[in-house]
């Protein structure tokens, strides 16, 4: 998606938001249709496996309840990603407080891609998957947002609550680490 595509998307999102504010419920449906798939994919990349529907729904509910605070200096999708990631972190914190729930550890990320084993069956792919699992959570989030979602550093920084420079550093550190682990 080029800059021009993003600008066009942002304008369409803004128009839909205005229509929804004016009372057009169909605008909400269009907004959900435009972003629900990306949100579900992003949740999967964050390691979410349970209650994905509920997570996406909670993200939209929270976003629509606070649309007044949405600033158009970032795209709606970036803002939605930010909300969804916060919800994921909240869930993990809550899970840590519940002793009967198995805590999601960084090592568990290795199982995130088990469903893709059939698609990436070769040895290098397995090495890449294992290398990704060994990254720190922040490095992995930055790396996957950059490579899999094609997000710019500025957007990644907004989503992760970091800075553009820090996102860039995390990306390059993650890339170097993945390369080293593959070649070891």
């Amino acid at each position, binding site marked *: *998606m*080029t*800059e*021009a595509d993003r600008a066009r998307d942002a304008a369409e999102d803004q128009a839909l938001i205005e229509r*929804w*504010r*004016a*009372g*057009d*419920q169909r*605008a*909400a449906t269009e907004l*959900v*249709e435009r972003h*629900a798939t*990306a*949100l*579900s*994919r992003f*949740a*999967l*990349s964050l390691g979410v496996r349970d*209650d*994905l*529907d*509920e997570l*996406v*729904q909670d993200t*939209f*509910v929270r976003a*629509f*309840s*606070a*649309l*007044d605070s949405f600033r158009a200096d970032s795209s709606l999708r970036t803002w939605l990603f930010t909300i969804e990631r916060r919800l994921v972190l909240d869930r993990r914190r809550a899970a840590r407080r519940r002793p009967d729930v198995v805590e999601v550890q960084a090592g568990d990320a290795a199982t995130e*891609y088990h*469903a*893709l084993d059939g*698609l*990436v069956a070769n040895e*290098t*792919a397995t090495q*890449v*998957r294992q290398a*990704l699992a060994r990254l720190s959570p922040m490095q992995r989030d930055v*790396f*996957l947002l*950059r*490579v*899999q*979602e*094609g997000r*710019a550093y500025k957007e990644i920084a907004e989503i992760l609550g970091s800075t553009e420079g820090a996102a*860039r550093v995390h990306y390059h550190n993650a*890339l170097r680490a*993945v*390369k*080293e682990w*593959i*070649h070891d």
Partner: protein
Amino acid sequence: MIECTNVEMQDQLPDLIAGALSPDARALAEAHRALCAACQAEYELLQMVRRMRPAPARVNIAAIVAALPAAGAQDSATRSDTRPFRVITGGQAQSAPSLKRPARTARPRPVFGAAFMRYAAAVTLVAIGGLSLIMADRTPSLVSAEQQVANSILSGTPFDVAMMPESAMPYDPNTVPVQPVVSVAPAVLPIQELSAYSDEELTLLMEQLEAWDGATHVDSTSTVPVSGGTPFQGGS
């Protein structure tokens, strides 16, 4: 491992894979990739990571839309997290009375208010203070014992040696048996004009004054006559 020195071009590889570059930038990046083995290797690695992108899960759009707050009603009353519907995976949205999380529910009002607690604390403080005063009044202290002994000496009345502070004992308790109560001979000369004292009495008084260094009560009472041996035997 060979590294590319063109950091800018390296940085554009994810955008190249995502198709986020303009046609001109894309042409430049492709030209660089064709010549740079490091960038080519990195491009293939990133492409593999991109292919690992998880497939999007199917979400129930209708249920999500049904759970959204009403259009155009964004006042504070509708911004709560209350949702009339909840998604059941693979099914229809079902009515739910409230999905507020327990952590967000209002805490129950305390049975006793803050004012009552402040009042109770004040009463407790006063009660404890009063009790402390009463207990202090009933407990014999070093000062009161001293005062009592001094009063006894001055008035010539018998006093209880046991009431004296241990540090003020003028004798070794191992050698001199402690008498619980002793009689004090007339220990104090009646206060009168100096001219009324005899020479012997004045001499005794001077000796007393010289022997007393005035430092502590211990020294001042060290000459208290006990067991019949008093320096003032000859007093009037």
